[in-house]
């Protein structure tokens, strides 16, 4: 009875704490400007199914894709066993579904076990790859410190989770064979689990009954405790992508990647300038000018769209964007991954500050300058390689573009040569100093 109460409390605290932190992230994301992604629901579902569920873009690099797939499928399927663990925990029963599901139960657990072994191997290789192989994208500047620890912690937690599963099932196999398991005896000699019917006797064969029960309970409680630890670790980690990958791909930009957003605020002013009948001194119409004036482009996180902010929380720092970035590959400061990490870190900082000190709080910092420098922004060639490379459709380029817009239109901070190029366009309709009258000269030249 006590264990049921402990379990129920654990369950409530575990889910409750997660819900609280997930909600903070939701509130942070909603600080962003509005952008309409409510259209084309069918197309969006298709994109989500292919990219998030089907991992399509992962397979541009087959080896990590297969390893990642092992982890991903094992993780998803193990949730079925978690249902039973929760049911057992709340009812005080042991292997509640076994007698009613029979052979299917044995098949399910066996399936989970095989996947868990694959996941164990994959996790091990991932750890080795991260720490022993000198893969450049895992060892860049922005990966020093917490991001590196974060990546390793997740993998270690996964190893522990899987170890607990095999302690639980392995010890139970030995107990069952001796007729001592709490699982209902169905008249057979073994629980019949694909891996643990062999691993169990091999590891725990000579143990006493009390030791076996202890190992089984440590496995069971250890597993569920790790599950809740893991769940509650997610909102503080890059690993939140396992959940956010789904909404993030659903709300993907469905336009051609080459299309940059249109600025409607600018459109109004330009139309006014070009309208010969417009009266520049006219009184604003009723209701106009009452809305808060937004700055052009983005200086801080709240100037970005909520999709940009969702992108930032979805990023799992794999670095495929950066390893495909022409600027980064030629030694420039720009790293699209760092743009996403900076956006998330600044959003966390700003969100926490606002919650603590009220909605008018200003900490005097901003995404621009305190996190992202002008040098990074001006190194971008807008080639969309980062957008194309991202396995979960994150768009670093739109953040870069919006921050350039702020620099140019609000602060007139533009590299000298670009200022010259822009004034050429204004004066002669070409980025170079040529007269528009000479546009057709090529026709008569040899």
């Amino acid at each position, binding site marked *: 009875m006590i264990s049921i109460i402990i379990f129920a409390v654990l369950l409530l605290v575990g889910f409750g704490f997660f819900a609280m932190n997930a909600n903070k992230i939701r509130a942070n994301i909603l600080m962003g400007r509005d952008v309409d992604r409510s259209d084309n629901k069918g197309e969006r579902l298709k994109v989500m199914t292919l990219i998030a569920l089907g991992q399509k873009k992962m397979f541009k690099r087959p080896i990590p894709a297969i390893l990642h797939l092992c982890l991903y499928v094992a993780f998803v399927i193990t949730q079925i066993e978690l249902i039973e663990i929760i049911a057992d925990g709340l009812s005080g029963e042991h292997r509640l579904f076994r007698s009613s599901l029979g052979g299917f139960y044995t098949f399910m657990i066996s399936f989970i076990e095989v996947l868990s072994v694959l996941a164990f191997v994959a996790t091990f290789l991932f750890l080795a790859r991260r720490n022993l192989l000198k893969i450049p994208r895992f060892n860049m500047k922005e990966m020093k410190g917490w991001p590196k620890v974060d990546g390793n912690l997740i993998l270690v937690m996964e190893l522990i989770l899987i170890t607990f599963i095999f302690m639980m099932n392995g010890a139970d196999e030995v107990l069952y064979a001796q007729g001592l398991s709490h699982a209902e005896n169905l008249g057979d000699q073994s629980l019949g689990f694909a891996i643990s019917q062999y691993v169990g006797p091999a590891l725990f064969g000579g143990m006493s009954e009390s030791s076996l029960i202890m190992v089984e309970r440590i496995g069971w409680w250890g597993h569920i405790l790790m599950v809740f630890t893991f769940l509650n670790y997610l909102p503080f980690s890059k690993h939140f992508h396992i959940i956010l990958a789904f909404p993030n791909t659903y709300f993907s930009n469905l336009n051609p990647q080459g299309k940059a957003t249109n600025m409607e605020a600018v459109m109004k002013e330009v139309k006014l300038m070009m309208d010969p009948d417009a009266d520049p001194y006219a009184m604003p119409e009723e209701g106009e000018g009452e809305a808060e004036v937004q700055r052009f482009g983005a200086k801080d996180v709240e100037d970005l769209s909520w999709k940009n902010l969702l992108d930032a929380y979805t990023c799992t720092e794999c670095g495929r964007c950066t390893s495909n970035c022409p600027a980064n590959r*030629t030694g*420039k400061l720009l790293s699209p991954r760092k743009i996403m990490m900076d956006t998330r870190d600044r959003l966390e900082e700003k969100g926490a500050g606002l919650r603590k000190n009220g909605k008018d709080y200003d900490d005097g910092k901003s995404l621009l300058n305190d996190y992202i420098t002008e040098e990074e922004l001006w190194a971008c060639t807008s080639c969309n390689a980062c957008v194309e490379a991202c396995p979960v459709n994150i768009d670093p380029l739109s953040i870069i573009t919006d921050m350039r817009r702020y620099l140019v239109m609000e602060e007139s901070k533009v590299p000298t040569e670009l200022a010259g190029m822009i004034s050429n366009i204004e004066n002669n309709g070409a980025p170079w100093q040529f007269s528009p009258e000479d546009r057709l000269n090529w026709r008569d030249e040899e």
Partner: protein
Amino acid sequence: MSNLMKVPTMAEMTANGEVPEILFWVGCSGSFDDRAKKITKAIVKILNKCEVKFAVLGAEESCTGDPAKRAGNEFVFQMQAMQNIEVLDAYEIKKIVTGCPHCFNTMKNEYPELGGNYEVIHHTQLIQSLIEEGKLKVEGGDTFKGKKITFHDPCYLGRGNNVYEAPREMLRKLDAELVEMKNCKAKGLCCGAGGAQMFKEAEKGDKEVNVLRTEEAMEVKPNIIATGCPFCNTMMTDGVKNKDQEGNIQVIDVAELIASAADL
């Protein structure tokens, strides 16, 4: 040869009461850059050969605003765009072909929200369809026999708008071997000119992007790097020079390759 080119302007055509099938948007590079002008002429020769009824805007054409928009100056972009839309709409233009993927992307994707709605295609798409319709015969001759050609995808044509096959289909018509770089199509590496980089020095780094891309091209040992963008052409030509490969590798636009294979 240029005497044989027929390049009517919209103003001239309208004065004669004629309506073109398609507007050829030359672009700033194609109008003013000496190397790019040759690409422009190759496109014109193909259009003339196939008797496509086209016109150019000439002095009435102006920058689409792309470099201003990528540089963050939305005001100048929209001013340019709206002025161009006024001109295009005054001539009741429906269909546009251009040799510049930046003009192509901007007019196709970014003009509609400002009120400019046209069917915009890239010159590789037009030429490919002319070949497919049998209007343009590419015999290949011996010009490219035994040559290795690699195609450098322009970002705003490939990743930007998913046009990967039209230029390759054209190149397969030549009597040459089409070889792909390790990073091609959706994985293609930028030439370094996009996002207004063409008009400024690069940020501090350890290499220029065009040099890196040239090195990638050199790995497949091509005789020709084919391009579909005047800016890529400039960048790759500079890259080849930087690597002292002018004697071994030529940088040529797909339109020029086709024009030369068709003996134009």
